[in-house]
């Protein structure tokens, strides 16, 4: 049997198992319950929770992008494991607090959380729309990864559109039927698979190319000095850019609705234990960085289309590996992309329904809301699919802008948790100004002042405006402000 056939059979086998687990997880649960669909009734256990949050880290970006960064940029790739280890830590303190507020007031989204605190429908609607656009962008990236891996591992026999349709179609089916619980259990299976694959395949590649890890680094520092040092001559990133990139990823991480709203899905103790074991996920990513380092000076960058192709390129073209390794890597990359895609699809549907639709049409029953969320899963899946397959420059710019804007939720969220003084007009002004600033520096200009990350520039404008506008708009007391601040502190 040819290698691509073995690979294809393994990947399709993986997809069948993933579908099976997703559907089984949602079985015997109350299908008509809004609470089950949105937060799995708040009773997910530690093991599942850990992988559910971890699924966000093991994405198509980490599987294809991390080796790509290490290969093309060197030391700056360390930012990936740094922010992975640190970004979860604030959740230990804010997660239980958000969870307590959510349980008391029946909230299951970021939009709902901010709407109640600031008594503003406009905030919820803005959040709903930004979350939707940003999620579609995120999904399109994951789907490109899935389609790409299908294509290359079967040596071009499964076309791009079919690979994306197959793998993402399965995600949409199990999320729409089983809700959060299905996404969570699929993530457990996918997470374990990815960890095993990245270590075995990663270290095999390093050993085939350089005999051992120390040898690889010796070759690398001899042939390309400065590559593993940030801001040095020959380095690809300045100290300021490195630092602000870590900052923006660390602050923005928990603002992503699919992570933020997991605070509602479990108990305080589980949240804390999840944070506890989470830095291990950062360590799991290490071999993927090593794969990228190992290819430096072995592969010339003009041999591949983009740096993200380095891992599949090594496996299919450079190394002599058996067909089942093709299949394993294919399945691992699919698992990485799917475990991210399921959580994002789920939360995008929730945020848009809760933040936008429910504020336009205010008398929805919970049964109707649930139905809209289920349909939303299909609609969002379809939108992301068409963008992945057909592209469209203007649209992609819009989505990229939204993607970079998620971190701009931070002042509103932390203001809600810890301050009585922050007001709705201040949060709206800050959010919009921060989003525009980020958009401008990310997509219009070529460089930024002092090489600061555009998201951080937006955040600085955002925070200053929130403080100034809040001091001018102090008026009637917002009833929820004091309660939010007091809960769980």
């Amino acid at each position, binding site marked *: 049997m040819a290698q691509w056939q073995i690979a294809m059979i393994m990947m399709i086998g993986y997809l069948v198992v993933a579908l099976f687990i997703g559907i089984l997880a949602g079985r015997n649960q109350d299908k008509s319950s809004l609470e089950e669909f949105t937060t799995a009734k708040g009773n997910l256990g530690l093991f599942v929770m850990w992988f559910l949050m971890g699924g966000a880290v093991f994405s198509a970006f980490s599987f294809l992008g991390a080796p790509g960064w290490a290969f093309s940029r060197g*030391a700056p790739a*360390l930012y990936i*494991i*740094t922010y992975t*280890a*640190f970004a979860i*830590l604030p959740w*230990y*303190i804010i997660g*239980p*607090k958000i969870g*307590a507020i959510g349980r008391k007031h029946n909230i299951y989204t970021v939009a709902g959380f901010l709407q109640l605190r600031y008594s503003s429908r406009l905030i919820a609607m803005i959040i709903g729309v930004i979350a939707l656009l940003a999620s579609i962008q995120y999904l399109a990236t994951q789907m490109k990864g899935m389609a790409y891996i299908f294509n290359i591992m079967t040596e071009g026999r499964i076309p791009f559109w079919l690979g994306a349709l197959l793998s993402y179609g399965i995600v949409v089916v199990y999320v729409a039927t089983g809700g959060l619980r299905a996404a969570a259990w699929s993530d457990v299976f996918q997470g374990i698979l990815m960890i095993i694959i990245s270590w075995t395949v990663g270290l095999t590649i390093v050993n085939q190319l350089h005999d*051992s*890890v*120390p040898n690889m*680094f*010796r070759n*690398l*520092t001899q042939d390309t*000095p*400065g590559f*593993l*040092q*940030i*801001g*040095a001559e020959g380095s690809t990133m300045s*100290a*300021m850019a*490195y*630092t602000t990139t*870590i*900052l923006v990823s*660390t602050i923005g991480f928990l603002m992503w609705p699919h992570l933020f709203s997991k605070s509602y899905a479990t*108990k*305080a*103790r589980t949240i*804390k*234990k999840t*944070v*506890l074991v989470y*830095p*291990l996920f*950062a*360590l799991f990513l*290490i071999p993927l960085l090593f794969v990228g380092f190992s290819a430096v000076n072995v592969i010339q960058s003009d041999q591949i289309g983009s740096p993200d192709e380095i891992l599949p390129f090594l496996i299919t073209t450079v190394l002599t590996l058996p067909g089942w390794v093709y299949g394993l890597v294919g399945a691992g990359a699919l698992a990485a992309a799917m475990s991210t895609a399921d959580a994002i699809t789920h939360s995008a549907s929730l945020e848009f329904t809760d933040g936008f639709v429910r504020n336009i049409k205010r008398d929805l029953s919970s049964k109707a809301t649930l139905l809209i969320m289920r349909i939303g899963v299909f609609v969002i899946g379809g939108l992301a699919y068409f963008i992945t397959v057909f592209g469209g420059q203007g649209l992609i710019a819009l989505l990229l802008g939204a993607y970079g804007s998620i971190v701009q939720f931070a002042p509103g969220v932390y203001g809600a948790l810890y301050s009585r003084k922050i007001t709705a007009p201040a949060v709206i002004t800050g959010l919009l100004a921060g989003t525009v600033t980020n958009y401008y520096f990310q997509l219009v200009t070529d460089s930024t002042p002092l090489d600061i990350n555009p998201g951080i520039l937006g955040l600085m404008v955002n925070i200053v405006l929130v403080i100034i506008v809040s001091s001018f708009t102090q008026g009637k007391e917002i009833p929820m402000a004091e309660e939010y601040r*007091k809960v*769980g*502190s």
Partner: protein
Amino acid sequence: MTKQRFSKIYCLSLLVPFLLMVFPLFSIGNRETPFILGLPFSVFWVIFWIIITFLLVLFLYKMDPDKDEKEVH
């Protein structure tokens, strides 16, 4: 120990390793040599502090006075 005090200790003690990972303090680790355990110094530095952070959170969890957030103030 009160809950506020714990939160303060939690944030401050984890800020230390974080600051060691970003500039200006990352300048200490930002070099290729010496090699430690076969890793260039910058790679070792990042991995080392992630492991320390992991142990630090374990320790903090042990001294957390209110693991279930039952207390109401």
